[in-house]
């Protein structure tokens, strides 16, 4: 029961962050450890800034939201 609630809470937190363009940091760290152990891993703060720039940076000129 409590573990279910904890999981729901975790997903809600992830959903809220992804809504504003920040994916899950733990997933990123795990991905880097498993597949690119030789590369440096960004700290949470670096990760956050990188994602923030990417969300509004445009580049390929895609609007990130609807009207």
């Amino acid at each position, binding site marked *: 029961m409590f573990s279910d609630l904890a999981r729901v809470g975790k*997903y809600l*937190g*992830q*959903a*809220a*962050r*992804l*809504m*504003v*363009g*920040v*994916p*899950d940091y733990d*997933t*990123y*760290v*795990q*991905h*880097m450890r498993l*597949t690119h152990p030789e590369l440096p891993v960004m700290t*949470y*703060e670096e*990760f*956050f*800034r*990188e*994602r*923030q*720039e*990417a*969300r*509004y*940076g*445009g*580049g*390929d*000129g*895609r*609007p*990130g*939201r*609807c*009207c």
Partner: protein
Amino acid sequence: MQNIQRHLIWGAVAILGASALAVVALHRGETINALWLVIAAVCTYLIAYRYYSLFIADRVMELDPKRMTPAVRHNDGLDYVPTNKYVLFGHHFAAIAGAGPLVGPVLAAQMGYLPGMLWILAGVVFAGAVQDFMILFISTRRDGRSLGDLVKSELGTVPGVIALFGTFMIMIIILAVLALIVVKALAGSPWGSFTVAATIPIALLMGVYSRYLRPGRIGEMSLIGFVLLMASIIYGGDIAASPVWGPMFTFDGKQLTWMLIGYGFIASVLPVWLLLAPRDYLSTFLKIGTILGLAIGIAIVAPNLQMPALTKFIDGSGPVWAGSLFPFLFITIACGAVSGFHALISSGTTPKLLDNEKNARAIGYGGMLMESFVAMMALVAASVIDPGVYFAMNSPAAVIGTTAQQAAEVISQWGFVVTPDVLTQTARDVGENTIISRAGGAPTLAVGMAHILSGFIGGKTMMAFWYHFAILFEALFILTAVDAGTRAGRFMLQDLLGTFVPSMRKMDSIVASLLATALCVAAWGFFLYQGVVDPLGGINTLWPLFGIGNQMLAGVALMLATVVLFKMKRQRFAWVTVMPTIWLLMCTLTAGWEKVFDANPKIGFLAAANKYQAALDKGELLAPAKNIDQMHQIILNNQIDAGMAALFIFLVISILVFAVPACRKALAESKRTDLETPFEAMPAGAQV
């Protein structure tokens, strides 16, 4: 046996939905409870999702859970991340839901709630959700590429550039019409202006907090921002009442226009973390929270609809917007039924986050059903208020005059009996000086929401709070859209101009970026200013242009989907996309044609230009022009609007001209000719 039992339950849902729909459709005279609409809508969504979206997923697309998705193939933990279905649903919904589904249904309510409701339901099931789902599928099978790229690769370079250019023009109109909604809501409202102005320092504070004080703590800073926002709404009433501060925050439409134009330019060149990102966080969370709150409010309060099912304005003589039910209802409600802009989102970040193809159904089709539900709630909110108040708020001053006395008299003659007292009392209830001619949908929605939410929390004394909460909620995400849209528009423009002047393409060049930003702001600023000074309220001109543009983009997306189905040799299922394409082309081409050429100056832009030209030739001045220059300006504006509508027509026909031969060519081939990324199996261990 079990199989039959399963279908029996869905049969019961279908019967419940059909009964609710029958109650809504056949009900005459007495008011009707809003819950009937909600039940009919929810049952329709459930049945459509269970059967039609499953048919599309299994038979039309043949979704393959064992096929690797771009998120898995390119997983980098950043742009490409296999994401839980429910988490991604939230992301996708937050990206597609905006002001569009809230405003369109409010404007459409002038014909009564029934036509709007039927179009929202039929539109989403057969067109809107199909488009979102198809584009998500097509983009996912092509490494998450964007709509412009997809059109380019499946149809050719020329249609690709045309689609990109069309998208840019639609974006300009969207930004102008969104900004116009804010201007209309804030003009002469010191309370509203103060709270919206307060969001700027609040966002700056949040920006600094999340950059330097507690980097990346989104939850904390959003909470701080939220508390400050609520405080600004609560104390906004005192500011508005103060003899010193009140006048300082009282602006007319033109002042607000120039402020918004200046703001749009500055905000879109500032670093994103300072202003845009924090306001985006606030507006996203507020948007989701308010939508949930409104749904709960409607369920608990169960308000009665005051608006009749049909009004006499289905003949096209309505004061809110001109034009008959066909085609104009179907472009007035764009988002919520079908929105071309979603094709950009479905081919944007979402396909890069999809963990498994089979979940495209819940996210693409399901996400759009959810947005449709938001549109339904907006329709309910507009219909629970007194129709007399509705028409007083949405009719232009040129039609109903500027005092409560005049407005009540004119509106009562239309058959919606209302007294001047009701109009002034409603204004007082929501803490405003006047509610007359507050076109644009947002204030009407705010009154409706205040009506529902105050019945749920706080009663009548909280009405003014809820009204300004609703205005702030809309203004907040509109300002975010203006800022982010100007940025995206700037990149698109640099990309487009770069085709001709390569130095424009340098995204980091200060000159190129400032020039592109200025051009972008000037473009939407022009349409905004023109809308603000329009005697018929501006919405009358700009909203149809927006609707036509947005539905045409949907037409382009559905044509792309049709071509892809033909190229996949699944042409026997092409009716799934051809049917909504034909309907959308009929609506938008008719509406576009009428907006350009109709002889009625209220509808046709050229007729309006000619009317002013004829008066000018005789040396007369027509309102709102006060001198010859303004007469010339109005003529030019109408000609430009006509040009815009003609451009949209050209855009969609030219894509059609490319799409039809592409389908015939694919039909003649014996093998598949689409450009899908080759099949790769999901790696072992990945969720299937």
